[in-house]
């Protein structure tokens, strides 16, 4: 018998190593469930969940929705582009109106960092952060670490390099927290303009040369260049970025050691990762997607089961 230390999943920063391990153990069971002929359990049949996506998403949203359906929860979906947010309603008003319809849990993606933390102070429902601006994306970090654990047996002591646009990436920050809590060594690698100042203070190594980073690591988590968040130019051209920081199969094969390549998606093929690398045997990108459903099932199951 065990439960999470928190009522919400706002970020990896707020949860403990024990919480992460409990989520992983529960996800193991759900992974077995989603590979059955009947992939559904009735656990959350009296729980209603609202998916509030104030920012675009394909994978995360589908993954959450499938996870909720596999748990038999009732769900309502909301996307900002087709809602009254356009008419000027505030976030709290929108959410309170949804909660008035008796919703127990909120899964939210928002462009503003801290938006789910703000909501958590004002409403009673459990909140799962599905990405808040450039801040955190906890379920992605959990499924990344879960995939490493699945492939390598454990996360402890493993060397993980996060490569690409670290500055604008919520995945990078959540990954750093999760991997460090689980005892991995973390390196960030990218052009200096895309590395946040003082990131060393988080206890990560910084490397500017992608080949050196690949030589050092057991796992390369490659991130997308988030052009939509870049208001100024951080590098001369995508072509130049790709030349200096793009990863292809030739580089991976030349390492002469086992290496795992991950990517949270969506991939810009030919920019940060070439097609032959993304589809190579090194890549576990599709395993990440499968594990995403099991991990999100575990998170929502554990949050719903927590008695206050």
């Amino acid at each position: 018998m065990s439960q999470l230390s928190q009522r919400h999943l706002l970020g990896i920063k707020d949860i403990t190593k024990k919480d992460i391990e409990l989520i992983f153990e529960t996800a193991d069971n759900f992974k077995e469930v989603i590979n059955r002929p009947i992939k559904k359990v009735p656990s959350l049949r009296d729980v209603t969940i609202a998916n509030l996506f104030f920012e675009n998403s394909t994978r995360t949203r589908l993954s959450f929705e499938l996870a909720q359906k596999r748990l038999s929860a009732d769900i309502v979906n909301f996307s900002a582009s087709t809602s009254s947010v356009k008419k000027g309603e505030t976030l709290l008003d929108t959410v309170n109106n949804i909660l008035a319809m008796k919703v127990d849990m909120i899964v939210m993606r928002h462009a503003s960092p801290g938006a789910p933390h703000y909501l958590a102070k004002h409403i009673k429902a459990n909140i799962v952060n599905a990405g808040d601006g450039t801040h955190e994306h906890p379920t992605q970090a959990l499924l990344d670490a879960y995939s490493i654990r699945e492939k390598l047996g454990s996360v402890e002591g493993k060397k993980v390099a996060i490569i690409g646009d670290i500055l604008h990436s919520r995945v990078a920050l959540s990954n750093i927290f999760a991997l460090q809590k689980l005892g991995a060594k973390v390196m960030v690698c990218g052009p200096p303009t895309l590395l946040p100042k003082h990131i060393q203070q988080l206890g990560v190594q910084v490397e500017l040369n992608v080949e050196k980073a690949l030589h050092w690591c057991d796992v390369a988590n490659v991130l997308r260049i988030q052009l939509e968040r870049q208001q100024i130019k951080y590098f001369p051209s995508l072509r130049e970025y790709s030349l200096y920081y793009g990863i292809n199969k030739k580089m991976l094969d030349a390492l002469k050691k086992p290496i795992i390549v991950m990517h949270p998606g969506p991939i810009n093929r030919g920019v940060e990762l070439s097609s032959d690398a993304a589809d190579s045997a090194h890549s576990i990108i599709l395993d990440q997607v499968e594990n995403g459903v099991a991990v999100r099932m575990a998170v929502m199951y554990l949050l719903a089961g927590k008695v206050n």
Partner: protein
Amino acid sequence: MLIFEAAMQKKLILDSDQLDITLSRLCQQLVENHLDFANSVMLGLQPRGIYLATLLHQKLEKSLKKKIDLGYLDATFHRDDFRRRELPVKANETKVPFIIEGKNVILIDDVLFTGRTVRAALDAMIAFGRPAKVELLVLIDRKFNRDLPIAPDYVGKSVNTVDTQKVQVEWQAQGNKQNKIWLIN
């Protein structure tokens, strides 16, 4: 102090030798109904029914000199007390590496109390197919404590208990010295 001792009173229901006799009898009864187990499979219920299932399985394979399918079924996600308990129950591994469609399934658990775990297990089992027939084997039947209309087909020992009592099953496989079953007041 006296009250404390009385509250902790333990009574041995089955010791190791008696348990062995009971298990042999249960195996005989299973063979009587399932003959050579050609179309029968065994499913131990997590977390504690698997020890009993494993013991019975070993005995049966030895006496019939053939392989019998044994799986573990976890009903945690099908429980009806989720979000109603003090602490959530932790899930365990489900391992059903065979097809149960059209088979005779023997569900095996150590103690039958309210019947709610068995109800959840029936629900969980259906996700793997539609068995021809399902039977329930329990080691201890606390027969006056049922919340649901569930009755076992094979019983190791029936005991009369009240709600506040507890049946404690100690298995060697869990690290205990001997297999023993206690009634705790």
